[in-house]
């Protein structure tokens, strides 16, 4: 399952990434393997989404979220 499929309000744990380039940027922002992640909100037009991770809120596009694999 990937982050883009996670329902609003549900909790997931980051397991890995499908895209190396994106993973480097996401990890810098605190999305690391083992980190808990929840979907806080979806933008009014359905994309991007806002997630809570590492103690703050991060927004990313659905496509980017689809590169994050959850446990």
């Amino acid at each position, binding site marked *: 399952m990937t982050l883009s499929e996670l329902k609003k309000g549900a909790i997931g744990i980051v397991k890995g990434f499908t895209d*190396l*380039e994106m993973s480097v940027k996401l990890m*810098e922002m605190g999305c690391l393997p083992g980190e808990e992640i929840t979907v806080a909100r979806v933008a*009014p037009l359905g994309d991007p989404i806002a997630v809570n991770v590492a103690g703050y809120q*991060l*927004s990313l596009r659905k496509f980017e979220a689809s590169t994050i694999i959850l446990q």
Partner: protein
Amino acid sequence: MKADIRVALVGNPNTGKSTLFNTLTGLNQKIGNFPGVTVDKKTGYCQLPDGRTAQIVDLPGTYSLYPKSQDESIVFSILADKANPLRPDLVVVILDATNLKRNLLLYTQVADLKIPVIIALNMMDLAKKAGTVIDIDLFSKKLGVPVVPMSARKLDGIDKLKAAISFANKIALQEESIDVETIAPQLIGRITREFELDNPYYALQLAHQHETIKFISPAESERIEELEKEFSFHSQKAQAAETIARYSFINELLYDTVKVPDTAQDETLSNKIDKILTHKVFGFIIFFAVLLFMFQSIFSWSAYPMELIGDLFVWIQSGLHHLLPAGPLTGLLIDGVIGGLSGVMVFIPQIAILFAFISILEDTGYMSRVTFMMDKLMRKVGLNGKSVVPLIGGFACAVPSIMSTRTIENWKDRMITIMVTPLVTCSARLPIYTLLIALVVPNRNVWWLFNMQGLALTGMYIFSLISAIVVAFVFKLILKGRERGYFIMELPVYRMPRWNNVAYSMYERSKSFVLQAGKVIIAISVILWVLASYGPGNRFAQIEKKYQQPQYTQHLKPDELTRAINSEKLENSYAGALGHAIEPVIRPLGFDWKIGIALITSFAAREVFVGTMATIYSVEGSAEKMESVQQKMKTATNPETGQPVFSLAVAFSLMMFYAFAMQCASTVAVVYRETKNWKWPAIQFAYMTVLAYAASFFAFHLLK
């Protein structure tokens, strides 16, 4: 001013770095450019408790030393390049105490460069409120650096930070965070030896960034490339390994030193606000309400100060006319230089107000939400959520709007935004549209409710937005992206705006606008003035002579005589000659040589049109006397056909020309300043002129 020590402020965005910078330096600050790039360089001075002076350099906010935008690449260059004149003796890393984990990543990277470092642990008040307990002493001991807890907004801890700066060590004493060499042992060893470096992390960063940094020679860069091939170094994999290692160090550190309350927290205030502000329906309604308010304010609040500035310059000009002897030099100074300057100064209120709004929207965190809401929509036409703000600002003035595109990290998105922003109907087009619409559109109501003139004006505004979107889409297809676009962005917690920062931003932006764009505007005004005031050969002398004859002096009143002389001089001036010269080109658009002069002079600034029209139709003075300009233009007839010059077709053709043509020297100057390459303003100028010509041509021939 001479400084005894240079201190750089480094930190993530939204950590209160600029608040701290403003508090430390007060108005004692200066904005310049970092050499070679458009990134604002903010420096200032601060008096330390021991009597020494510290120069403070505010570096752009970044999440890591691996840059994602031009702004961010500055940070590593300044910290690492030993030859850089701005290289600091001490780095103050600002950490947000409510968000330590992510903030510490940048700290560990900076610390590993082995420059003396101090931690300013900001937003302690908010951390305490959330129930977070930080063992500052242990935290400081584990990292081996002084840690100053503070709340910059409340001015808590500023004195302690100043004291810590003055007591700071001259050598770096911080503890190692990770074992850098294990990431690429052989490569780091070789680079360190060959380049005689004393720091393995610096060597690793060179391996990552050698292609983009400017302080190493191409030969050195090539050598690093060779070494990377030899040891099969993979930049992204190495960076991933480094990031994971750093976060595991950070997790351990935080486990020992920070206690976060483990009771489930209530829904934060920020989330509650977001439920409304990014709501499916209310979100957009609120956004448009905010825009409408902003738009209205830019117009209404700036009207009075703009008038005041205009009057002030008129007063100065007339005062100088009385004081100085009449002559070409006086004319150049008063009508050329000061006239040009007033054209610049008049925009200050609009710029200041626009930037006040932008700074408030950014400071509160609302801007990130707008970006969040609009991203999908804007992406369809090749723009970015962050393009919304400059496009809306373009209704006031393209100049500050183009400056505000710096927040767009993606190069292609930013370029497209810069390219289309001048298409949006700015306030300088308003007087031209009102004048021309009043000439040809009847002042009648249709369907009881709508005034036809008002509808025509609204039409021009909507038309401009549509054309900006269409052109953006075309650029999306043409331009090649330099990097993969992505949208990984922090949504900061909502906060009250810091009024100090708002005031600084108004002041700074206005100042840099006047200084940078001002030079170009003055230069062009002087050139135009010369062209309009002199003519080839002795034509001017002949005109003077002609009007000295009794048939003129006896039958015309003195001011009528002056107007007649000025009008004929203009026709025979270099500008007049230019007007006649371009007449064949603009004839298909329905324009004569007089309109040609107005077109040429309008290339300095659109609002010059009304003034030029006034002069050409020999009406006294300025835009204020719109009535009389209008009358004259209405009665002007074409000598060949006997028809009125300003028919419906000509008026709309002219409006189309002004809608598309890049007739604004300030915009050209600011596009150059922001892109640092004449190619972009040249492309913009070319495509806009072509569109203007085509649109005018079709308008004229369809309506004829």
